[in-house]
């Protein structure tokens, strides 16, 4: 490890990757999507005019912009639609009571399709209130159900991050928050490996490296909590919702704070190395229990992606453009952790020599 620390190439790689994720993560735009629809409630048997607002969209009269509404498994056409600007469409729509009564779901999704943006949608955008409107349009059923529905689910031909409801622009935090935990886990595992080596060999260098890894792991843990709290404030509206993964992470950080306290309370160098190595091995087992076992228990519900607390990324969450930045980000933050560790080890070695 010391020889690896002395080499230069991976530090250049780390700096290059960090620059890449900083630039790519900030410069690649967010894909098109629908942010809101006004009004969001309506009644049966009358035609309403809705205003649909888009984000980073290219609505235009020339690119085939069409709007549908979806309830249950059925699609309905709009009566008419008019493009106001590149990010606003006005659309007339209503639902006959005969049709509404055979659909159990009162929430209607908006689906919008054009040649530039592909198919974009807003789930449960409209809510149907019970009862008919005052002005009744008797020809509505033919207008809404009589047309041909062509939702071909084509992809947008733009190079962009996916537009997700709730996340919006904060999806870029994926390159910071998630790799922080990957890096912390890596530091913690490497630290425990060096603790085992220290117990086997009694070499002080191994103990120094193990403790440096813990300090860096704590830094990444603090950064992971901090970025997570910012993200949670934006998406869930609360910096600290009572989520099993949050509490697990906080306890994981606490375990390693206790490691630092333990090291501080023992003055004898040889004893400190041995005792803290034993505690470190103990701690990594509990830490892995917290990160991998407890969030996966079947009766644990988490707000994090992947239902029932399963922390894995599904195909749905991470698309190919996100992956292009996400995997380099994981490597970059782990390498940065190694870089920090090498500097802390050098400082500690100088301190030992001066004593």
């Amino acid at each position: 490890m010391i020889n690896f620390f002395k080499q230069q190439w991976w530090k250049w790689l780390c700096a290059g990757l960090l620059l890449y994720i900083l630039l790519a993560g900030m410069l690649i735009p967010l894909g098109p999507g629908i942010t809101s629809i006004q009004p969001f409630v309506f009644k049966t048997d009358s035609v309403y005019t809705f205003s649909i607002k888009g984000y980073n969209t290219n609505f235009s009269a020339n690119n085939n912009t069409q709007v549908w509404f979806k309830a249950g498994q059925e699609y309905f056409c709009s009566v008419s639609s008019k493009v106001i600007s590149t990010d606003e469409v006005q659309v007339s729509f209503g639902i006959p009571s005969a049709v509404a009564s055979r659909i159990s779901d009162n929430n209607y999704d908006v689906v919008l399709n054009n040649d530039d943006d592909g198919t974009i949608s807003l789930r449960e955008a409209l809510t149907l209130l019970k009862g008919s409107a005052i002005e009744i349009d008797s020809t509505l059923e033919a207008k809404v159900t009589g047309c041909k529905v062509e939702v071909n689910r084509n992809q947008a031909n733009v190079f962009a991050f996916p537009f997700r409801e709730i996340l919006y622009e904060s999806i870029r935090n994926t390159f910071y928050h998630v790799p922080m935990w990957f890096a912390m886990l890596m530091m913690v595992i490497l630290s425990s490996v060096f603790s085992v080596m220290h117990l086997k060999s009694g070499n002080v260098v191994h103990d120094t490296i193990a403790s440096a890894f813990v300090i860096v792991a704590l830094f990444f843990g603090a950064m992971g909590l901090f970025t997570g709290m910012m993200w949670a404030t934006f998406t869930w509206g609360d910096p600290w919702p009572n989520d099993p993964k949050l509490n697990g992470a906080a306890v994981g950080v606490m375990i390693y704070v206790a490691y630092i306290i333990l090291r501080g309370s023992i003055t004898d160098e040889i004893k400190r190395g041995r005792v803290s190595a034993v505690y470190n091995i103990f701690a990594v087992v509990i830490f892995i229990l917290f990160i991998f076992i407890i969030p996966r228990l079947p009766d644990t519900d988490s707000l994090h992606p992947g239902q029932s607390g399963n922390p894995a990324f599904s195909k749905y969450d991470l698309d190919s453009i996100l992956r292009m930045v996400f995997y380099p980000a994981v490597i970059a933050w782990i390498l940065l952790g190694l870089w920090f560790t090498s500097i802390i080890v050098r400082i500690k070695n100088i301190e030992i020599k001066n004593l």
Partner: protein
Amino acid sequence: MVQYSGAKNISAESAIALFWLILLFSAVNAIANALHQEPEGRKYYYMWLAAPTDVITAKLIYNFLLSIFLTLVAFVTFAVLVGFQLTDYLLFITTAIAGSCGYAFVFTTVGAVASGSKNNASLLAILGMPLVIPLLIFISKLSVASIETAASEQAIQNLFLLLAFDVIIAALALVLFPYLWRD
């Protein structure tokens, strides 16, 4: 305790939470005392007399019996003074035994680690509290299960996880204690 038994309408969940808190603090104090009372000289005597794995096994068994005794006393006192509203007594008693076993194992191992420093009583609490939280998670799930329904498949699975946790801690103690012993 006096305040709660005065206010009669305490819910079943908070009664059990109170029970486990009392048990946690009494276990910490009892095990810390057991560690503290051991004079420095006796440690070297044991070292000369027996293998380290035998010493830690003896300590684990002693602290296990101590915390089982504490659990029994607390259970009887609590049942008389506050009263449990349980549907599945067998599940709760199994949880109590497995849980107090976990308390004993965690604090014995952490106590062995903390005995290397000067002020080991406060260090025992600092080191032990985060490690005991997974135990508390399983215990609270099982306690709620024993209030609400008879043992479900979920509860049995949690009970096995709790026992697996005990076994892991004991195994780690057995493997790592010899390294602490070498002075």
